[in-house]
């Protein structure tokens, strides 16, 4: 049902419809372009977004890890330096108890500076808990330093008595405290790392969800778009096919029409020619005979009447002649009376008589019983070609050869005239030739170069050979 309605539409296209549909298709093109551009934009956007998110996340992760590592390292450095400080202090105190001058002297200033440096190099971010703990470390250290400074005022006996007490009561608890605080810092660090990792995971899940949505959205849009486009293309294709069929049918009809036109033209010419020739011509011929008789009845002396009769005679003769010429032009009776070759020879002589072109006719095996269609086709073709050769190409010599072989008859007209460009210059005459030859299932070939003459060649199948 839609196909037939489509057909009707394409058949009865109004002139304005073309521009309308053109506008329509342009608009459609714009829509499609926008849709595809949008889809592409979505794809790029989604891809970029995903890429950036992933990169950002991995940056954050690296940063988190780096931070944890730096904090841990700095903490270790502090812990180690404090440990060395305490150790050396303890040993120096113990040593001082036994022998005054032992190997390594304890250098509290340098060690203390080391610890301070380590403490200072601890990253100072905006973590208040951590900073507090670090401050506490500093306090513990200061206590220790102060405690150690107090030992310097001790005498040797003081030293023996108080060293162990000092170590037990001051140094060890302080060290424990120190270790505890650093443990807390380390825990805090670890906790922070865990927190940040969790945040990262949440972020990652978010990004994943976003990418998923993006993919779903793009995919849906793409599917929709391709569905619409596909349907539209199918519709276009069907329309195109229908239009092409209509075109083919139209061309067929046109061909049939033009063939019929030629046929009717030929029939009409034939009948007018016969009418002119047989009726008008013969009547005038009879008139001439009667006028002759009349002139015999009039006494030779009567000049006035004889003059009148002669005048009537010459008028009638002129009429006969012009009617004969007309009839010949419309349809040469020799085609019917004498056959194809004599008719062509007659035409050749006519052209030779009227123009500067000499025409030679060569024929081989041409049957006298060719069908009327073939005779007329060849005759008209030669007529047209001779006309072209003598009037347009100003040829001096033209050769016409008609050769009949098994199942085929070929005609070739070649001249030595000005020639033409067969690709470009195709007049109505040549179109007519083509039309005639095609109608009988034959082929027409034109060959010419400007300045080098022209050749028209037609080959026609002989239907009699086929049907026999």
């Amino acid at each position, binding site marked *: 049902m839609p196909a037939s309605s489509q057909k009707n539409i394409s058949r009865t296209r109004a002139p304005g419809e073309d521009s309308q549909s053109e506008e329509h298709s342009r608009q459609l093109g714009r829509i499609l372009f926008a849709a595809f551009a949008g889809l592409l934009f979505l794809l790029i956007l989604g891809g970029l977004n995903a890429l950036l998110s992933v990169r950002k996340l991995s940056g954050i992760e690296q940063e988190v890890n780096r931070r944890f590592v730096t904090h841990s390292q700095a903490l270790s450095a502090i812990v180690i330096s404090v440990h060395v400080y305490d150790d050396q202090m303890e040993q120096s105190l113990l040593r001082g108890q036994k022998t005054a001058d032992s190997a390594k002297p304890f250098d509290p200033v340098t060690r203390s500076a080391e610890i301070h440096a380590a403490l200072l190099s601890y990253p100072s971010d905006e973590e208040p808990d951590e900073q507090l703990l670090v401050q506490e470390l500093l306090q513990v250290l200061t206590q220790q330093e102060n405690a150690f400074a107090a030992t310097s005022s001790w005498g040797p006996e003081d030293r023996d008595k108080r060293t162990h007490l000092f170590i037990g009561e001051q140094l060890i608890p302080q060290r424990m405290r120190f270790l505890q605080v650093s443990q807390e810092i380390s825990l805090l660090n670890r906790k922070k790392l865990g927190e940040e990792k969790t945040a990262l995971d949440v972020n990652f899940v978010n990004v994943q969800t976003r990418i998923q949505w993006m993919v779903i959205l793009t995919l849906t849009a793409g599917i929709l778009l391709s569905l619409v486009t596909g349907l539209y293309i199918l519709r276009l294709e069907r329309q195109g096919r229908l239009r092409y069929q209509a075109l083919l049918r139209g061309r067929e009809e046109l061909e049939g029409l033009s063939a019929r036109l030629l046929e009717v033209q030929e029939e009409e010419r034939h009948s007018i020619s016969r009418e002119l*020739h*047989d009726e008008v*011509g*013969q*009547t005038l*011929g*009879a008139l*001439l*005979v*009667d*006028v*002759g*008789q009349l002139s*015999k009845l009039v006494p030779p002396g009567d000049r006035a009447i004889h003059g009148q009769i002669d005048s009537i005679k010459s008028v009638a*003769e002129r009429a*006969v*002649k012009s009617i*004969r010429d007309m009839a010949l032009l419309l349809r040469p*009776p*020799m085609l*019917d*009376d*004498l056959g194809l070759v*004599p*008719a062509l*020879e*007659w035409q050749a*002589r006519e052209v*030779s*008589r009227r123009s500067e072109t*000499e025409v030679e006719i060569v024929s081989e095996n041409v049957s006298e019983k060719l069908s009327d269609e073939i005779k007329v086709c060849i005759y008209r073709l030669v007529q047209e070609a001779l006309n072209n050769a003598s009037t347009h190409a100003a040829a001096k010599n033209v050769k016409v050869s008609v050769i009949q072989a098994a199942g085929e008859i070929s005609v070739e007209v070649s001249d030595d005239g000005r020639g033409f460009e067969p690709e470009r210059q195709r007049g109505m005459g040549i179109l007519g030739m083509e039309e005639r030859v095609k109608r009988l299932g034959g082929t027409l070939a034109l060959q010419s170069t400007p300045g080098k003459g022209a050749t028209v060649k037609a080959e026609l199948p002989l239907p009699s050979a086929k049907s026999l």
Partner: protein
Amino acid sequence: MKKIRILLADDHQLMRKGLRLMLEQQPDLAVAGEAGDGREAVALAKSLKPDVVVMDIGMPNLNGIEAAQQITQSHPEIAVVMLSMHSDESYVLRVLKAGAKGYLLKDSAEADLIKAVHAVAGGKSFFSPAISKILLDDYVRKLKRSGSEDAYDLLTPREREILQLIAEGKSNKDVANLLNLSVYTVETHRSNIMEKLHLRGVPELILYAVRKGIIS
């Protein structure tokens, strides 16, 4: 004196009427019958056995050419004068091939018909003077454009004599008698003439003679 009996064949009654009027004014001519088409002409020629058939070239059913051919084939003694509107060589040659003895243009029928009937009844050929002129013009023009020479100059006086006699409708035997030659010699001359002039058959020879004004 025995009258020359004539059969008129023309599909136009007016034309037949005019021709009959013209012919019957002559004391030695009599119209034996009238035919309206080619087939009737052939039938009447067989039954009436006229001396001369005056026939139009274009007729329904059977055209003049075909009718002339049938009549001269079955009755060679009947002379046919063809009436035609066409002065072209193709027609003249075709009519000659059909066995007609005279070719008369309709324009000049009124002036030459009596002469033509008398000529063909006497065994001679007759062609409208205009025909000879047109044929000659075509011939001369062709010779001039192709630059070739008229082969007529190649003929010996004896050959020219024989050419004329044959063109006038004489048989080899008649020619031999007239010129005191053997039939064999005449035949040899005849084939020489044909070869020199590139002619095929008597109709072309007659046409050539008409063209050259050797006969009229």
